[in-house]
């Protein structure tokens, strides 16, 4: 056990101590430099360099098979990169032991299968595991954190339901609540909005924006929905064939020209008059407009 672990393990002191060792908001929490990773002998991510900063939401977008999920898996430590480095709080990821890593970084995968009939609350309480010893039962403090996480994702009424009985969207929110119960400094979310309806998409991004702001959490999400990326992300990484095709503020990363090249179809980029964010629409092969 090293010094950083004991700091992170003390509840309550989390925020202040974490901020102390990671620096102020906007400081880089997670950094990848020339990261290459893949499966078998196929590289799915090639020489990608990104920063995930505290207090911000970074969206990773791109077509199917662009390497978004692979990048996220490598960043989470589940997939060992072929080359390049990943640093969490300026320390190589490989130097952390799994439990220490789990106290600082939470990951929610695209699909969330559960083998047995655990209740929603039990799944969320599993987020407390990295903070607990092998033999200990959850304390009142852990339970409170889990219940708050459930409430934050509108799940309080479903706490006692078996996870298998929930809809795809409800289950996804349970896993997001579990990530929150980990009290991480960095959250990596793979397609968090995939099964959600409009209201819950808005709510989820609202929640994570709020967490970024109040807890200086660094959030990275992969997304298919370019408009959601434009609306909610502070910065965007646009990927194609495993490499970065654009990186920066939404306006910089997602120009009509870049998107056209990456998605191989004509794209309209304008402004949404209601929000002022980019509005991105495909143009290719339209229906003839009604006269």
């Amino acid at each position, binding site marked *: 056990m090293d010094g950083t672990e004991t700091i992170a393990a003390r509840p309550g002191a989390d925020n202040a101590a974490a901020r102390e060792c990671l620096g102020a908001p906007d400081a880089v929490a997670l950094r990848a430099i020339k990261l290459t990773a893949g499966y078998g002998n196929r590289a799915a991510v090639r020489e990608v360099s990104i920063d995930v900063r505290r207090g911000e939401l970074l969206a990773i977008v791109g077509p199917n098979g662009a390497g978004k999920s692979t990048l996220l*898996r490598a960043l*989470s*430590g*589940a997939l060992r990169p072929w080359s390049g480095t990943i640093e969490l709080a300026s320390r190589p990821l490989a130097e952390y032991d*799994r*439990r*220490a*890593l*789990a*106290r600082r*970084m*939470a*990951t929610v*995968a695209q699909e*969330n*299968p*559960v*083998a*047995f*009939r*655990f*209740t929603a*609350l*039990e*799944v969320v*309480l*599993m*987020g407390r*595991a*990295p903070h*607990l010893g*092998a*033999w200990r*039962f*959850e304390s*009142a403090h852990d*339970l*409170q954190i889990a*219940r708050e996480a*459930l*409430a934050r994702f509108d799940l*309080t*009424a*479903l*706490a*006692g*339901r078996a996870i*298998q009985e929930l809809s795809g969207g409800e289950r996804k929110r349970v896993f997001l609540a579990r990530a929150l119960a*980990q009290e991480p400094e960095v959250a990596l979310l793979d397609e968090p909005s995939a099964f959600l309806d409009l209201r819950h998409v808005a709510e989820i991004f609202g929640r994570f924006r709020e967490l970024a702001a109040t807890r200086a959490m660094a959030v990275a999400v992969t997304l298919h929905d370019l408009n959601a990326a434009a609306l909610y992300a502070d910065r965007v990484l646009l990927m194609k064939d495993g490499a970065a095709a654009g990186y920066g503020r939404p306006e910089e990363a997602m120009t009509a020209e870049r998107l056209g090249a990456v998605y191989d179809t004509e794209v309209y980029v304008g402004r949404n008059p209601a929000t002022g964010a980019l509005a991105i629409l495909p143009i290719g092969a339209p229906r003839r407009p009604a006269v």
Partner: protein
Amino acid sequence: MSGVAPIRERQGGGLDEAGAPETHDYLTRGRALGALAMLGAILLVTASVALACGSVHLSLLTALNDPASADRAILMGVRMPRVLMGAIVGAVLAMVGAALQALVRNPLAEGGILGISGGGAFGAVLAMILFSQFGGSDVVVPVCAFGAALLSTLAVYRLAQVEGRLEPLTLLLVGVIFNAFWGAAIMLVNSVVNFYFTHSILFWLMGSFEAPTWHEVAIVAALGAGGFAILLGRARDLNLLSLGDDEATHLGVEVDAVRRTVFIVTSVMIGAAVSVSGVITFVGLIVPHMLRSLFGADHRLLIPAAMLGGAAFTVAADLIARTAIAPAELPVGAITALCGGPFFIYVLRQEGRRTLGL
């Protein structure tokens, strides 16, 4: 479990709806202890009935009060070791079933079904035949049973992986093939050895608790207790593994280390059980499944509950085996398989669609 009150009040800040019963929200220490006390009581009652009943009528009171009585001699010399052995082997099989199911994320996984017990039985039979003339086979037989069980575990696990993913159906099919393979291997050995061994081999194929020695009881008890302690220590990791390897990794579990530990421990436990009682199938399937539907899926309760529940179940099965057609005996493995076959189909139909994607 309605008798056990929730030990903590709700802390949701008045947002809760009254719908979901609080006791099933999550596992508390109080709920766990309540469940274990209940199972312990069931085990005690079952064991007492099993000690009192048998082909010879016996008074437990006489046996306890009069050290010189025939009742005492039968109780301590015959029934007690048999009931104890049944309890220990049942406990071991049910705990192993629960742990393996968590590890491969498949409610149908079990030592007998996956062919691990079959491998252990083959190892035991082979060791018995090869080393019988040298003596000391009560060490060699369990060691060989363990070795063959571990080999089967690793082989089944590797072969069931398709492109790095453990496919639930492939796993069961590989188990079927291993069972057939080990069964055939034992039959092959059976056909070339003399009549004396033929009986022992049949015994291994069907499973029985006939006349164990106190020495055997002690060895299996020690290995079972050690295995229990190690599995209980991994109980939270087994919970997290239910979410998948990646998710467990993200929650701080050293997945490969846990998997290695559990494979070795369960193989030792199955090896020990098989070397004294042969192949007893389905205990590891039926007991954890029933306990999960009663008490929830949390392995911090499931592992100790499987120990008590498996012991009670197997003692009861053995009681039926030796009293149903007394004074003749049925093999206990036949009783558990007769219950287990239909139960397997039932679970497959119930859970198949949801958990196995059928």
